[in-house]
């Protein structure tokens, strides 16, 4: 039965995550537009974009750059499959990191100044979010006594009660993973920026579509991780996920982009102050 549940979770993720991730991106673009006093694109705009990209010519600087991005997509699917089949959260985090490493290698491989600078920033961003996400795994273990996503999901109490500090830290991770201001240093959803398009500058056609779909898988996985904080009360969890998304979009529109120093400092401060103290409290008082 456990195996069946795991297989079902994995299958649903592989099939539904691109749809869900694309819809989230579509809602995001509409809400952003409304916040700016515009009407905004249709809900299915991200899908139109990806379908279009699949029919465009794929230009490359070096052929191998596409190879890395395909691995990024595969590893993002793998990460989500591990997570939604209820696997070990440490393994999930390492798979996520490996996916990011391929993404970064691809960006370096394209070797244009814009792509290069964007990739360096992506590297800094992954340094920025790693500590929080590792502490999150420790915190989840301290609170529930298990690293297994299935056990954490089945834990009867609301985890946010035990992990408020890590939750705030995790909001930063979400900003980074959704490529939102103030942490959209490496590349952003919004067209014009100082690095042209940052690390995706040199990618076009099918490869860009693959990056976009990989990003959708990643978004759904991150939302799943957010869900764990409220997993004891599913209805409340869905509402909380929606509110958090709204908060992310609001922050995106309200903030300018951080410099990399500030991005790194603020997330590490968050990890050290909120994350570590949260775990210390768990350790001594529960």
């Amino acid at each position: 039965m456990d195996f069946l549940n795991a297989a079902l979770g994995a299958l649903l993720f592989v099939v539904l995550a691109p749809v869900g991730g694309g819809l989230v991106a579509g809602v995001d673009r509409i809400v952003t537009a409304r916040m700016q006093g515009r009407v905004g694109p249709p809900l299915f705009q991200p899908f139109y974009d990806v379908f279009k990209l699949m029919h465009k010519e794929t230009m490359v600087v070096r052929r191998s750059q596409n190879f890395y991005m395909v691995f990024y997509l595969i590893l993002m699917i793998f990460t989500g499959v591990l997570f939604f089949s209820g696997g070990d959260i440490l393994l999930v985090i390492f798979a996520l990191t490996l996916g990011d490493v391929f993404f970064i290698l691809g960006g370096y491989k394209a070797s244009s100044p814009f792509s290069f600078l964007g990739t360096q920033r992506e590297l800094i961003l992954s340094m920025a979010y790693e500590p929080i996400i590792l502490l999150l795994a420790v915190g989840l273990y301290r609170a529930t006594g298990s690293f297994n996503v299935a056990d954490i999901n089945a834990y009867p109490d609301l985890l946010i009660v035990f992990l408020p500090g890590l939750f705030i830290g995790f909001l930063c991770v979400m900003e980074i993973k959704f490529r939102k201001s103030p942490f959209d240093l490496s590349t952003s959803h919004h067209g014009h920026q100082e690095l042209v398009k940052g690390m995706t500058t040199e990618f076009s056609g099918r490869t860009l579509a693959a990056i976009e779909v990989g990003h959708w898988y990643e978004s759904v996985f991150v939302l799943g991780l957010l869900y764990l904080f409220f997993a004891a009360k599913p209805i409340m969890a869905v509402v909380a996920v929606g509110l958090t998304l709204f908060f992310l979009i609001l922050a995106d529109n309200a903030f300018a982009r951080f410099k990399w120093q500030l991005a790194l400092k603020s997330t590490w401060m968050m990890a050290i102050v909120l994350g570590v103290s949260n775990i210390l409290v768990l350790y001594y008082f529960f």
Partner: protein
Amino acid sequence: MATSLSRSPWVIHYDASSCNGCDIEILACLTPGFDAERLGVINTGNPKHADIFLVTGSVNEQNKEVIQNIYHQMPDPKAVVAVGVCALSGGIFAECYNVSGGVDKIIPVDVVVPGCAARPESIIDGIIAAVGVLEEKQRTRRSMMAGLESLIIERTLPEDLQAILELQKMAYRSEAEIYGDFHLAPLTQTLDELKIDFLDMIFLKAVMGGQLVGSIRTFRDNHCGYINRLVIHPLFQNVGIGSRLMGAAESVYPDAERYEVFTHHKSKRNLFFLTRKGYGIYKTVRLPDGRDRLFMQKIRSQTR
């Protein structure tokens, strides 16, 4: 899916030498008042992500290369919209000593948006018209691909020479752009000169659905097969016609010991293609016009 092309036109905007009037109106298209993102328009600022190239202002001697560069970096299918009267003809700047005229002097323009400055409504109309052009190009490419199976390579007859000359001039335009010289030998060749070539070379042609899409010529001297002037219709490049023509040209002289071709130092695409076909550079000669002619050869025993 042809409809996805029409629903997601990503644009790149370049200010050639405009007074900024049209540029401000293009940006106005993205503001709440007009909100071009309703139609899926994104101002990418990156030629590799763009479908539509919006150029404002007249072209001057300084930015010719920039415009060509942006155009060539955009992936197919792509469309060019000349925004405003300056981009159309040079406008009031047309007489200036450094202005070469409208955008169509250097890249093919698909849509022209009138006005000085062009109004946001008409710019959006222009983008919509460009979307139509994109779809048309997509359809042509599709039908081409479908016709690729019916590709025939055969000996050229004397009455094809006129068509081959026209194709040659069309295909060598990109070479002329690379070297900034529109008087290259293939572009100035006359029909009579071509007829003389025809006497001592074997001409092959590639025909697809009754249309001439490519040609190549070859002759032999002792044990060497010389292969010259591989030309392919600009719309039909990068789909494998060149490889088949090269193969056919080599098999005209199956007993030759080596095959020889030449290209020039800046023609990166040709170099890449020929290297992949097994040719290596063995001699470089500086031509009087400043180009380096690279002679490349393939020894037959290496390939069989």
